[in-house]
């Protein structure tokens, strides 16, 4: 493997890993804020116990999300210096804005929330978790806008003198539909993820009889959040797919392993292709659904991979413009599949719970613990799809991934850092998971809240 392949692996590993924690943080922040608001409004202790307990889970995750995020900010310069030079005039701006508008807000107000229980008024303390949560949304918007530029570059001009892309309209970069649709697709997925974490953990607590008073409302809320979020994710996913078909038709074709251009194109459930991925051997599909997904018309024509490859060669010169088809095809299906499975499970459970009942089988107890992993997998496959099916481009139609790597960094250096990051991330994952499980087992803190002045700090490291 050369430095390019290794740098791509490093980006994939560190980014997918980072994004395990990001959606949990975004969604959980709001859910914890909701629980605390319930406590603030009703003064019922069960909500306070739930706030503190789920707050702990939220923070264990947040710690890893934060520290792995630093790598993201530096990685472009370290491994992708040619990319950074080429797009820096455009791409750096949303990153810097993210830091100035969002990171400061999140970190400062979350610090206030964690340590401010006995330092702030009840109202001000509640406000801090809401502000920190809003910070996560702002952060998501800017980084998705930066990514949207890579999917569909707008608001720029290529300067032949410098050989760089130059920003012409920041408004275009920040408001293009690729960014907006990605935001409204990603945020509900984050809520789905957090909903699944909360519902899964609370469901286990309810079934095990551990503080069911506090856990049951969380379980129900989590399940409803899953179902509603899944609907929103579906709607905005559909919207995104149409935008994608227009802007990156090759990606849509790859998602479907559609080799030949077709009207009434089917959405396939299973494709077995030749090993080189150049054509399909066997497909099971639902007629016309792909046409509808990508054009909004069941009779619409969807361009196939082979035609697109030809037209790209005419436009961009000789080369391979086809992404890894099996990867695109399967990651797209796994994204939808895992998300759908979580929603189905949530619906089923809500049905059982409709008259104050509960599903009681052993199978259910096990599934509820597995629930949080479903959206996490869906999120990961979603990003694997979006990024891998854009290849060979890093900025679609403008700049190839192969041209973006740092020329001065040796394969050995990238290998060394990649292995170290992977090992460290692996160890952290084990520790993090262990702490989560233990925190869940320990459960809510049932000692009654003390009133009056206390000599000791409510929160200490």
């Amino acid at each position: 493997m050369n430095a390019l392949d290794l740098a791509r692996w490093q980006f994939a590993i560190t980014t997918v890993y980072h994004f395990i924690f990001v959606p949990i943080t975004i969604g959980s922040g709001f859910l914890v804020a909701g629980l605390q608001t319930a406590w603030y409004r009703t003064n019922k202790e069960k909500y306070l116990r739930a706030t503190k307990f789920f707050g702990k889970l939220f923070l264990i995750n947040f710690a890893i999300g934060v520290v792995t995020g630093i790598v993201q900010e530096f990685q472009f310069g370290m491994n992708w210096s040619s990319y950074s030079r080429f797009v820096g005039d455009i791409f750096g701006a949303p990153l810097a804005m993210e830091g100035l508008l969002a990171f400061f807000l999140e970190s400062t107000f979350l610090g206030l929330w964690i340590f401010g229980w006995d330092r702030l008024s009840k109202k001000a303390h509640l406000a801090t978790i809401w502000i920190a949560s809003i910070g996560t949304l702002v952060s998501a918007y800017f980084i998705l806008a930066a990514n949207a530029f890579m999917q569909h570059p707008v608001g720029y001009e290529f300067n032949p003198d410098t050989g760089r892309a130059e920003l012409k309209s920041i408004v275009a970069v920040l408001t293009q539909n690729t960014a907006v649709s990605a935001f409204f697709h990603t945020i509900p997925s984050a809520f789905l993820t957090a909903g699944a974490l909360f519902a899964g953990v609370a469901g286990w607590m309810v079934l095990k009889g551990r503080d069911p008073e506090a856990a049951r409302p969380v379980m129900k809320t989590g399940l409803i959040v899953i179902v509603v979020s899944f609907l929103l994710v579906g709607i905005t996913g559909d919207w995104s797919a149409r935008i994608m078909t227009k802007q990156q038709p090759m990606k849509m074709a790859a998602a479907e392993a559609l080799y030949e251009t077709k009207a009434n194109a089917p959405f396939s459930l299973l494709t077995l292709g030749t090993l080189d991925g150049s054509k399909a051997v066997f497909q099971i599909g639902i007629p016309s659904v792909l046409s509808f997904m990508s054009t909004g018309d069941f009779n619409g024509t969807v361009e196939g991979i082979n035609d697109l490859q030809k037209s790209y060669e005419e436009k961009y010169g000789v080369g391979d413009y086809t992404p890894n088809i099996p990867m695109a095809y399967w990651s797209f299906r796994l994204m939808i599949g895992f998300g759908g499975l979580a929603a189905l499970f949530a619906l089923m459970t809500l049905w059982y719970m409709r008259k104050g009942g509960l599903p009681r089988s052993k199978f259910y107890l096990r599934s509820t613990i597995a629930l949080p992993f479903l959206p996490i997998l869906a999120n990961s496959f979603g990003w694997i799809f979006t990024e891998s099916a854009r290849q060979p481009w890093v900025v679609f139609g403008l700049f190839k991934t192969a041209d973006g790597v740092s020329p001065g960094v040796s394969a050995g250096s990238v290998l060394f850092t990649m292995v170290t990051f992977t090992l460290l991330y692996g160890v952290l994952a084990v520790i993090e998971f262990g702490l989560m499980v233990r925190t869940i087992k320990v459960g809510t803190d049932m000692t009654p809240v003390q009133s009056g002045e206390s000599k000791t700090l409510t929160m200490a490291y």
Partner: protein
Amino acid sequence: MSLNSVWFILIAVLWIGYFVLEGFDFGVGILLKVVAKNQAERRAVLTTLGPLWDGNEVWLLVAGGATFAAFPEWYATLFSGFYLPLFLILISLIVRGVAFEYRSKYGKAKWRNSWDNAIVIASFIPALLWGVAFANIVRGVPLEESATGAIEYAGGFFNLLNPYALLGGLTTLSLFVTHGAFFLALKTEGDIRTRSNAIGIKLGLVTAVLAVSFLGWTLAALTSKTSVVTGSLIVVVSWLAALAANYKGREGWAFLFSAITTAFVVITLFFGLYPNVMPNITAGGPGLDIFNASSTQYTLKVMTVVAAVMTPLVLLYQGWTYWVFRKRIHPNQIANPESGVLDSIHA
């Protein structure tokens, strides 16, 4: 003033923010096992950083992001060139952040001790390496123009470990540890406070020797611009003020002056650098300055508006956090210091 100069100043401001703030929290991390002898003291020390360290670290992220936005060529050359030191810093910051959050979850001595060691080492490495990195930037590094016109770093890892840069590293290390001691003296009560004050004065003298040698070397060998001379003098004067305040037991003033000193170390280095951002060590060779490394005027304008609106706001609410958590922490305020929240499962 050109927007390029404005952004040079803003980048300097971000690094000042970063080193003044995370400087003391590196120092606190390094001193953890020296000033805190038992669990209550360790946790009191870490709790002084609790609500602050993450916000402090964001200054680094924003400095990185802003350099990317305003001076992409600088960002690209610096980050790909100083690859291994930056990697070591990243690893340290990852371990440190997680260690703060996780170390007191269990009461087990082995668990806590491992994380404490991690905190000490992961605070030590960046405190040293940031100085090494900045000294190298000021000194100049081997740079070459590539076929595509990019100015790339042309040295190796060991080029960065020259005596001048190492002295720079020791200077920031010693400065940050002292700054951390002054912070702890201001923020704690009891034995930690006494020990921090005593360490502060001793390390303060070491820092004085290191800083004077480092700045003297800078003036003698690299640049003797009036601005650098002035900056160096302010560093020396404010450091003496910090030491005097510490000696007199005026902890607030000692910390304020060590913050000013840290700020002026950064200012002096940026004075020395201006208008370059990454000079070539070989005179006349290709190098990066605020013009050939910068973004277009349009991007700089956009970012100037954003920075002008947001920076005061950030300073305001971050300042408020420091106000909210202004009280000193005494080890006896830590409830059940020996046990962790995950030690036992409630019935």
